[in-house]
């Protein structure tokens, strides 16, 4: 006679019989706590089963992920491009949240996506958008392709420069737009991957970014035709040699990262700033 086996889920006692006992003889748990142990033809603990099971799981998951990734790739790339356009528009003081169609607005404002070399010469007047700035930063300065976006806001010419640097925990990046004199700051945009919320991450906030576009106290990246960058100083400190903004209290490492990013990122374009149009 084939008897069924029931296991108590509370204490693990195994009962043999046609049905579960009313009470567990060991821990007095009611019959509902008993679970039938199903005898299977397959030994789930054998080596062969384990290896086959693992292989099947891996293959199934791999196909599933490949499928999801493949199906969503186009949509994701679109989002990445749109997001980049939004960032560039933000650096031109355009409020993205009030903008119904950022892609159309971008086409309207951005007139050229140039590629420069470190001598400030225009190598190519298209294709600047597709340059990967963090990749270019790993090359020697002479070989870098430097993108610059030539834009028009209310009839005035603006230049937008991308920057990329390192914060405390991960990369930070941003865009800075200059007036046609290539010195007066028109607007900025900063973002980050993983800076501390409430501290370093405050570089994305208007409170920090508005310092760059204070109409009463415009910031310049050069003095007497010489590139000085814009210093990010500890709140309360000043800087004699360059225009400066206050960093984030408690976010010193990130503020320093922004300072270096501005200096090195814009420094690559020094020759371009010195050129007459």
């Amino acid at each position, binding site marked *: 006679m084939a008897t069924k086996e029931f296991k108590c889920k509370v204490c693990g006692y195994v009962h043999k019989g046609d049905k579960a006992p009313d009470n567990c003889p060991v821990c007095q748990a009611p019959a509902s706590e008993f679970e039938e142990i199903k005898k299977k033809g397959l030994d789930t603990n054998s080596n062969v089963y*384990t290896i086959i*099971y*693992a292989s099947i799981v891996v293959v199934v998951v791999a196909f599933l992920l490949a499928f999801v990734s493949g199906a969503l790739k186009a949509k994701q790339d679109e989002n990445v491009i749109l997001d980049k356009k939004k960032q560039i528009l933000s650096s031109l003081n355009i409020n993205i949240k009030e903008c119904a169609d950022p892609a159309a607005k971008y086409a309207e404002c951005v007139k050229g996506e140039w590629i420069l070399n470190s001598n400030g010469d225009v190598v190519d007047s298209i294709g600047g958008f597709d340059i990967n700035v963090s990749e270019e930063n790993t090359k020697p300065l002479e070989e870098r392709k430097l993108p610059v976006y030539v834009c028009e806001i209310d009839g005035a010419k603006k230049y937008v420069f991308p920057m990329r640097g390192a914060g405390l925990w991960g990369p930070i990046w941003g865009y800075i737009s200059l007036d046609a004199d290539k010195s007066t700051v028109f607007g900025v945009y900063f973002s980050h991957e993983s800076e501390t919320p409430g501290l370093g991450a405050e570089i994305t906030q208007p409170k920090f970014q508005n310092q760059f576009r204070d109409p009463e106290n415009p910031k310049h990246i050069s003095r007497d035709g010489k590139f000085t960058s814009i210093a990010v100083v500890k709140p309360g400190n000043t800087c004699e040699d360059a225009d400066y903004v206050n960093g984030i209290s408690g976010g010193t490492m990130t503020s320093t990262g922004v300072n270096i990013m501005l200096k090195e990122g814009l420094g690559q374009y020094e020759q371009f700033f010195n050129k007459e149009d």
Partner: protein
Amino acid sequence: MGLLSKKSKEAFITPIWGNNPVTMQILGICSSLAVTAKLEPALVMGISVTIIVALSNVVISLLRNTIPSRIRIIVQLVVVAALVTIVSQILKAFAYDVSVQLSVYVGLIITNCILMGRLEAFAMGNGPWDSLLDGLGNGFGYAIILVIVAFIRELLGSGALLGFQIIPQCVYDAGYLNCGLMLMPPMALIIIGCIIWFQRAKNPEL
């Protein structure tokens, strides 16, 4: 068995307060410290974890009788990692702004101890329906603690809630300062400690 038998109800209710995964089982502490400086990421993290712990609980519960016991942890991890990856891919395609905001947090869900804890302790031995409720209950329990901690930290640390300034400027003019320490991870630990203290003082049986 009815849809909400006593056991199912218990699976859902107890983790929310009485047997809370964070304050009673001390699971998922790492992410509770990392994402609670502001209320918004805490909310989104709570929701994401709830969805993923519920889904992975169901998947593991369906597979529980076939999983070889020697590699069960690996199988659980693969299921969790696959689900997290899919969720993050979907977010990137359809809710790009949210995924940018969450950045590393979504990936962090894989290492959340609550997931492994629930899969190992509950889903491996219970049916899919109970497991779903258990997952939801634990997710909510986790989310509640996150929201409480983030509420206190953002209010005292930044004077704001969900990014909106709550403490008026006149209070600052009178000499009040935001408590910068609140934004540091150790304060989250201290707040969670206080919640545990409160909970056990209320209920001496624990």
